[in-house]
């Protein structure tokens, strides 16, 4: 069954067709990679999914429900979490507080007035934060201000924040961009481990090593249009993909 179904989505900025009749479906429990050259519309597509921008037409169906036009926080509450290309974390707050906010949002919903209970009394949530921070090796730094972390740690923190919400679909925008090889491999292992828990993932990635290590399905986007969709083996040998990437450079 497909968890996310994008059909006939168009988005035009001025005269530029950023998304041109995009059809894509992400099956439940799979890792789906979206690849394509720069400017192919990959990030625009993610923005259309999470409600950051509204497509001109077409439908985005998540879990059987059309989510086009819903507010970003409603889409997240429905079960879609996104890791951004540049980590979006709460830079002035401690790692622990960074974790508490998504955990509270997951437990209490989009808005709950709770101005009296101390957040250090929320033992359940603290346990959960401990669990998810352990996954990314950040529990030891829980009182560090998040803005002072290294770029890699910021990414891991953001990932832990997204995972703590128990998402049905996790969107990752270039999770290894700018990482050293060793760090990249660690991240691949971590993502594999997450995938093995049955969390559906859609990944935008330039690094083919990452893509072929993780993805079960791949969609290739070029000039706002999905030109091919298939298994990694099919994509590797597809001539249209080579064409899209600078007229046949080695993929």
């Amino acid at each position, binding site marked *: 069954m497909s968890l996310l179904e994008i059909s006939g989505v168009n988005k035009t900025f001025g005269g530029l067709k950023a998304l041109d009749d995009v059809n894509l479906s992400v099956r439940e429990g799979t890792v789906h990679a979206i690849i394509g050259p720069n400017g192919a519309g990959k990030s625009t597509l993610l923005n259309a999914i999470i409600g950051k921008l509204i497509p001109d037409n077409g439908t985005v169906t998540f879990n059987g429900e059309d989510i086009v036009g819903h507010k970003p926080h409603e889409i997240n509450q429905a079960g879609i979490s996104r890791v951004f290309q540049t980590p*979006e974390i709460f830079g002035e707050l401690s790692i622990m507080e960074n974790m508490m906010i998504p955990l509270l949002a997951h437990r*209490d919903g989009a808005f709950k*007035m709770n101005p009296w209970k101390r*957040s*250090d009394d929320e033992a359940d949530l603290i346990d959960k934060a401990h669990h998810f921070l352990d996954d990314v090796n950040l529990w030891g730094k829980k009182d560090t201000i998040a803005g002072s972390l290294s770029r890699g740690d910021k990414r891991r923190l953001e990932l832990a924040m997204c995972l703590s919400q128990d998402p049905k679909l996790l969107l990752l925008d270039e999770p290894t961009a700018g990482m050293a090889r060793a760090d990249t491999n660690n991240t691949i292992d971590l993502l594999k481990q997450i995938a093995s828990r049955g969390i559906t993932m859609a990944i935008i990635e330039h690094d083919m090593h990452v893509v072929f290590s993780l993805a079960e399905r791949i969609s290739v986007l070029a000039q706002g249009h999905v030109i091919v969709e298939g298994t990694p083996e099919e994509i590797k040998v597809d001539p249209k993909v080579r064409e899209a990437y600078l007229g046949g450079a080695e993929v």
Partner: protein
Amino acid sequence: MNTVATKKKDNLMVLIFAAVVLSMPVWLQPFGAAYPDLMQKFVIFGLFAVGFNILFGQTGYLSFGHAAFIGVGSYATVWVFKLYTMNIVPAILFGVLVSGVFALVIGFICLRRTGIYFSILTLALAQMSYNLAYSVLTPITNGETGLQLSLDDPRAWDAAQVQGEGIPATNFFGMEMSAWDGLFGFYVCAAVLILGFYISVRITRSSFGSMLRGIKTNQQRMTYTGLNTRPYALSAFVISGMYAGLAGSLMAAVDPLAGAERMQWTASGEVVLMTILGGVGTLIGPVLGAAVIKYFENIFSAINTSVLADFYSFLPDGLIDIFVGVSALFVGKGWHLTLGLMFMLVVIFLPGGIMEGIDRIKNRFAKKPQQD
């Protein structure tokens, strides 16, 4: 150094805060500031700044119109004095309620925008309220004269009591605010400040407080974390508006009249200065900032050339005139100059305000034992 806030540390902080505030009549003695009028100003404006900090310091929304809520609180309180009772408790509760409703309306409009546009909207609406108070709202505000008590006010709930001649005084269940040479009024205000401070500590440490800081730090992340930021920001706005209304009500409780000048934009700007001077986002900073600014406004402005001449009397004759001449620029009417210079120095060297200065000193002392 462990900087994590715990319940124990917070309770200790509130206790120390209470002790310092309540003992003001003693330790302000050497500063020449231990008279009730000024101490009331310290605590009332401290309360205003504590509330303002919930919006500005925690949530990151800089309002330039918070004095409007002071005005609304004052007017509402004086009306209760006039119509129903001179007891301050119902009057203050009503003042806080009305300013809360007013804040809900203003906040609903202004929070459609963030950053500088939000600030300008609050400024515009507050100036509008100020001008309305002088013009079309005269039946409610009594325009330029200000809203005052008069002998023939109904005071419906007090009618049963035997009234002496003259306008009765504001009281706390029979205890007049001016009792103990005005100190009783100060202690009532001080108790309210301590309560207000405790509430702000609880808000800061709660999950609601986390949400407010999340909004300040990264609104985009909040949204994509499934949080509806608008009602959180609006709640912070209303809470801080109610604090401002409470401050306005207390002003009316110790001195039962209300004038539109309290709502002017300079008063709104003053609380911004207080918060920045003391330390934005810190718990105690805004209270300190309020005290420093009110101290300058009342003490430095009262220093005149003869006081200066006394101060420099140890110098030879020729020099006295020069020193007095130069110093006179900074005191009396020139107190704004001193305040301005101090504000510049703090912003440039201590962006975290007075609290950052205190933290630096603390750290310097705390580090020494570790090095040994």
